């Protein structure tokens, strides 16, 4: 048994960390946070040059063809750096949907552009409040065009194309849903940026008016493909959340060592020590769940749906826990705009809601466990 990343994968992690430490300091994140630019274009180009955007895309489609374990390693570093780029929407959602269900021509058209950083992609699934559900999808597909509204769509205002979930039937079954590929620059789609809790990760409303769309995957397979895409993205996003948890813990630890109160470093007070110990515990449990998710993702194991839900829940909890207590350790300073704590707190809470909320994944986990262990 080797329940760990390989030395090569760890080297890739080190390379990604070094690159992001240099190219994505908190100052760069703030440029986006302050609304100066919608995302860090320089960083995006650099990620493409490093081969990180196409790490799990096969070589025949312009990627590095390394695999999903390698992508997990990169995802962790993206989360640790709080990178203000459309990585998760493009790489975890759009690219994974194309890899799972795209025709050869579709893959040939979009995947090389993703790998080279030329195209930003996203998944347009939600239509207002609520969790992923076939019933919630009202956007209509007919005669090769789409009509309706999607929101929130992650990175929707900067994306070049979207995978769109649309209604193609009225039987009340999952098979009413189909997926479509839409070139967002081709007309028929209006994008409106939406203010949201984490400005470093844009959200948008997309209005489709007779927008030209091509089917992605077979008609009626939309929900089943989506479920798989969400599971895969859940593992990958969970690695980002683990990276963010670790960084928030480190920030708290470092501050507790530096900051003196009552004549002692505050990290010598048990109340603070124990808070940090609990942060370490939740980050470690999440990391271990995610390693299992990574294994299931990389081997396409039958355990993937359960492992994905567990990774997602555990990492969501850990990132929320670590980022909120990081602020607590920092005291009043942690609540200021000029300290970096709130950037992780924002990201933790935004990440908790994309791909479906915590309660959605709790539901998924129990359903999946129950299938394996019927009463």
């Amino acid at each position, binding site marked *: 048994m080797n329940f760990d990343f390989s030395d090569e994968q760890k080297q890739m992690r080190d390379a990604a960390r070094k690159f992001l430490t240099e190219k994505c300091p908190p100052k760069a994140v703030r440029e986006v946070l302050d609304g100066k630019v919608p995302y860090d274009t320089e960083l995006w180009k650099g990620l493409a040059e490093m081969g990180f955007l196409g790490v799990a895309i096969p070589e025949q489609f312009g990627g590095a063809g390394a695999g999903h374990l390698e992508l997990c390693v990169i995802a962790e570093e993206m989360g640790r750096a709080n990178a203000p780029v459309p990585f998760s929407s493009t790489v975890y959602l759009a690219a994974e949907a194309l890899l799972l269900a795209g025709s050869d021509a579709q893959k040939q058209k979009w995947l090389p552009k993703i790998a080279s950083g030329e195209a930003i992609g996203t998944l347009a699934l939600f239509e207002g409040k609520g969790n992923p559900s076939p019933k919630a999808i009202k956007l209509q597909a007919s005669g090769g065009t789409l009509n309706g509204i999607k929101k929130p769509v992650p990175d929707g205002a900067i994306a070049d194309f979207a995978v769109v979930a649309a209604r193609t039937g009225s039987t009340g079954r999952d098979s009413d849903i189909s997926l479509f590929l839409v070139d967002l620059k081709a007309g028929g789609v209006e994008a409106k940026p939406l203010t949201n809790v984490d400005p470093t990760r844009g959200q948008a409303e997309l209005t489709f008016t007779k927008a030209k769309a091509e089917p992605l995957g077979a008609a009626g397979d939309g929900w089943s493909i989506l479920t798989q895409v969400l599971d895969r993205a859940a593992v990958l996003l969970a690695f980002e959340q683990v990276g963010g948890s670790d960084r928030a813990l480190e920030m708290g630890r470092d501050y507790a060592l530096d900051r003196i109160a009552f004549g002692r470093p505050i990290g010598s007070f048990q109340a603070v020590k124990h808070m940090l110990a609990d942060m370490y515990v939740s980050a470690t449990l999440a990391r*271990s769940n995610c390693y299992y998710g990574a294994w299931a993702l990389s081997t396409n194991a039958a355990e993937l749906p359960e492992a994905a839900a567990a990774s997602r829940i555990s990492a969501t909890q850990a990132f929320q826990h670590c980022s909120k207590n990081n602020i607590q350790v920092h005291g009043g300073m942690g609540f200021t705009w000029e300290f970096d704590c709130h950037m992780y707190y924002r990201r933790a809470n935004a990440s908790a809601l994309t791909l479906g909320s915590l309660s959605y994944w709790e539901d998924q986990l129990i359903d999946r*466990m129950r299938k394996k262990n*019927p009463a």
Partner: protein
Amino acid sequence: MNFDDTPQEAAFRAEARAWISANAPKQYEEELRKSSLGRTVLKGANILEVAKAWQKKKAEAGWACLHWPKEYGGRGASPIERVIWQQEEGPFGKLSGMFIIGHGMCGPTMMAYAGEEQKRKYLPPLASGEKIWCQLFSEPAGGSDVAGLRTRAEKKGDDWIINGQKIWTSGAHYSDYGILLTRTDPNVPKHKGLTMFFLDMKSPGVEVRPIKQASGQSDFNEVYFTDVKIPDSQRLGAVNDGWNVSLTTLMNERMSIGAGVATGFPELFEFCNSLMLEDGPAIEDRSVRSRLANYAVKASGLRYTSMRAISALSKGERPGPENSIGKLVAGSMVQEVAMYALDLQGAAGVLSGLEDAEVAGKFQAMLLRAPGTRVEGGTDEIMRNIIAERVLGLPGDIRVDKDVPFNQIPTKGR
């Protein structure tokens, strides 16, 4: 990243599986499988005798104390082989409970500090379960603060005379030998005046009084020493170096990973999956699902944390203080799980009798045993200190008694 055995590991696993299948006391398998924290009962059998018989059989075939050297009754197996054995032994491993302290802590301490002749005399019967050992460390005045102990050892000729009291001594009532930490010099700071011994628990002046626990069971004891004589030849390590000797013991405690800690989750999941509430199956209730999912990811997180530790072991890395997580998380969780399982039963949740209780008192037993798990082997608070100090590198607690001679440390708070 994979879960496959190496060819050598696979061969070892196959050999272990075949031997266990041919030799394990299968008549108790079902009861052992169903047992949970606070509730291991074998109907119509004395568990001590069953456990000793299984240990003896293992020893005769070379499967006892896998991590010990062969000359002392072990097998010289690698840490990963030990984990494989535990996986294969499955529910029968629950019969090893009463040997854990002897095999995991007393034996390794003897190996490090006893004379060669003594090792050959005492260790094989310990490995085979013929003799049971206990560890006499904690005292009423020194639980988490082990070095604050007051049991005195005074040199008289070639012997030491012991007077004092130990407490929370697991299994002292059926133990044959014990390792004993004593104070030999009260005029120096507390860590510098301790000395370790081993002794025959049947020695004159040793009195064991079982403590009735909150659960009603008696796993622990008070042990009183009145002028107990121990020959100097049974001293472990140098005089006044007992603290370092005890650290060897405690470090070995950490090596016993991979056994898997009880979280109560499998029991709770099974319970919720079968329980009918007024509005239908409990598992279809939204709030139940949320609670279950939360416990599920803690339980799986612990399981995979332990697998990561095993992977590190198999690469020759030593397990670190990271393993304190298991006890810390599982301890509270088992307590919460038990409370929640009772809550789901409403008023009837109080009942623990076989006839009336929904799951035959399983969760009630868990509830009453759980507080002990959060205290024994280091409290939750000590575990958090260990993580904060040794993993995160935060400053140690301030110790006002650090350089103060032991006999000048205040003994009362007010």
